[in-house]
């Protein structure tokens, strides 16, 4: 059950000109959040911007005694709301609603889990990586960005024993090109008898390409979709994507806030998803 709290900003860690990690005291949300769930944050005290913004829960932060005490978000400065969140000072209180949405279902060993992140799409994978590590599922993070300076927080994954494969479009770090290049090679090399599930979050063209690769190689694939959201609770019908029902059938406009953000990639009608 989601709660709404006036969460105090504990820390605002700048990663680069465009990226920051914002930590917010929110014990109730931290305690009940599951991998891949999101929160709705009011980025300003006033009415511009008016609506809250959805953010994947990036990390669950614990106090000295190990109890969940706070959550962080992985913020990329894009529009008005994310610009405010890039500058927010510790001590500020921000309304925080969550946890929301359908979470990732981590696979158990001997199946492997491959997380594929593009840019700010890294956001939902720290919580998933922790859940995978807890069940000793062999896990790999494929993480791509345009430039080396846009790759962040890789150490969080390495600390959990996650194998990391990087790619940059300028070739300065990791494989040269898009992350789908090393992903495709890995899919090609993996014997069919070795199960693996893909988890994808990133720009729409990248998710579409990953969904296609997963289908071609016969692998299960979940995607975490980001759409413009009004409420996060299923009230406004703003955040829909065209998706088939879990049992198949004709595609319908489906709310990403309550039926997602995590979807089986094969359910999504990718031609209809707005690209960005």
């Amino acid at each position, binding site marked *: 059950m989601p709660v709404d709290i006036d969460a105090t900003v504990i820390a605002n860690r700048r990663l680069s000109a465009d990226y920051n990690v914002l930590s917010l005291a929110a014990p109730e949300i931290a305690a009940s959040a599951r991998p891949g769930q999101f929160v709705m944050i009011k980025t300003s005290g006033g009415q511009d911007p008016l609506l809250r913004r959805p953010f994947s829960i990036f990390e669950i932060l614990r106090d000295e005694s190990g109890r969940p005490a706070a959550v962080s978000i992985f913020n990329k400065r894009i529009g008005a709301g994310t610009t405010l969140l890039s500058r927010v000072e510790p001590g500020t209180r921000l309304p925080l609603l969550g946890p929301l949405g359908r979470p990732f279902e981590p696979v158990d060993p001997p199946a492997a889990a491959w997380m594929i992140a593009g840019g700010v799409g890294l956001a939902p994978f720290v919580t998933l990586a922790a859940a995978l590590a807890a069940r000793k599922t062999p896990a790999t993070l494929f993480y791509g960005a345009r430039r080396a300076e846009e790759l962040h927080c890789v150490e969080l994954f390495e600390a959990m024993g996650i194998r990391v494969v990087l790619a940059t479009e300028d070739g300065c770090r990791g494989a040269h090109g898009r992350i789908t290049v090393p992903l495709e090679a890995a899919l090609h090399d993996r014997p069919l008898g070795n199960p693996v599930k893909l988890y994808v979050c990133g720009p729409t063209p990248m998710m579409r390409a990953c969904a296609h690769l997963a289908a071609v190689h016969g692998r299960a694939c979940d995607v975490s979709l980001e759409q*413009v959201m009004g409420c996060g609770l299923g*009230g*406004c019908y703003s955040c829909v994507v065209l998706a088939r029902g879990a049992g198949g059938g004709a595609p319908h406009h489906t709310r990403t806030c309550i039926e997602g953000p995590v979807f089986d990639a094969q359910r999504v009608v990718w031609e209809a998803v707005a690209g960005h």
Partner: protein
Amino acid sequence: MDYSVTVGSLTLANPLIAASGCFGYGVEYADVVDLASLGGVAVKGLFLAEREGHPPPRIVETPSGMLNAIGLQGIGVHRFISERLPELRARRAVVIVNICGTTLDEYVELARILSDAQGVHALELNISCPNIKEGGITFGCSLPGTHDVVSAVRKVTRLPVIPKLTPNVTDVASFARAAEDAGADAISLVNTFLAMAIDVHTRRPKLTNIVGGLSGPAIRPIAVRMVYECRRAVKIPIIGMGGIATADDVLEFMIAGANAVQVGTMNFVDPFIWTKLMDGIRAYMDGHGIVRLQDIVGTVDTSAREKAWISS
């Protein structure tokens, strides 16, 4: 203290109603809001059949507001009755069903079906959605159309009939009068203002539907003015709405002439807004020695404009 409001045969415990299109079918909010604590729940607009609505993007923010062009996506009246109404009934919600048709006959058919369903307390006639081409608004933008649809529905139901008026007309009060003459138990206003936003870099509209309806605090003063004009034109109860964010906003609408209010856009921003509004109303009544909330309805004092201090 008495917060109750009477709309035709229906008595609401308080004047706060969740606005249609902003609260799903109510059940989506059952975990965060005690539905029985609301004056009423106006569920998302229903056609006879299911509808897919418009392709996204469906909303865009504007200063102190938002545009929407959802396009009345919905599950249709039959699935609503079988899949959503039982839970609303179990949660003891006062259910106001917002209905939309493309023809007069469809409104009548919807009214008949819903009058037989257990747990429906009133019908709100959507004759004002700006986002669909067919039906709806074509009734709401014509005085005879408004009269015809209200009187046709009136004939087939005992439920309170509440046409929801569009602000996209020159003289909203004349539409209020047409609704009252046709036998409406109340009117609700305003629906959203037809509006547009353009991305200057791509020169494309920000909504797939090109235009959409503006809601939120940006429209509130216009909505208050329209409620005020309608209060002077009709005797039936008025349900006012348009960007209500605080208890003072509720009170402003009521003083302008609304008997009850709906909250829409700000429920997106704060789904827990309802208890805050009630607390604020209670504090106001305490502070002003008001025991019956309806006593403030339409009490705006315009005599001050005659006084010297305002013209000096």
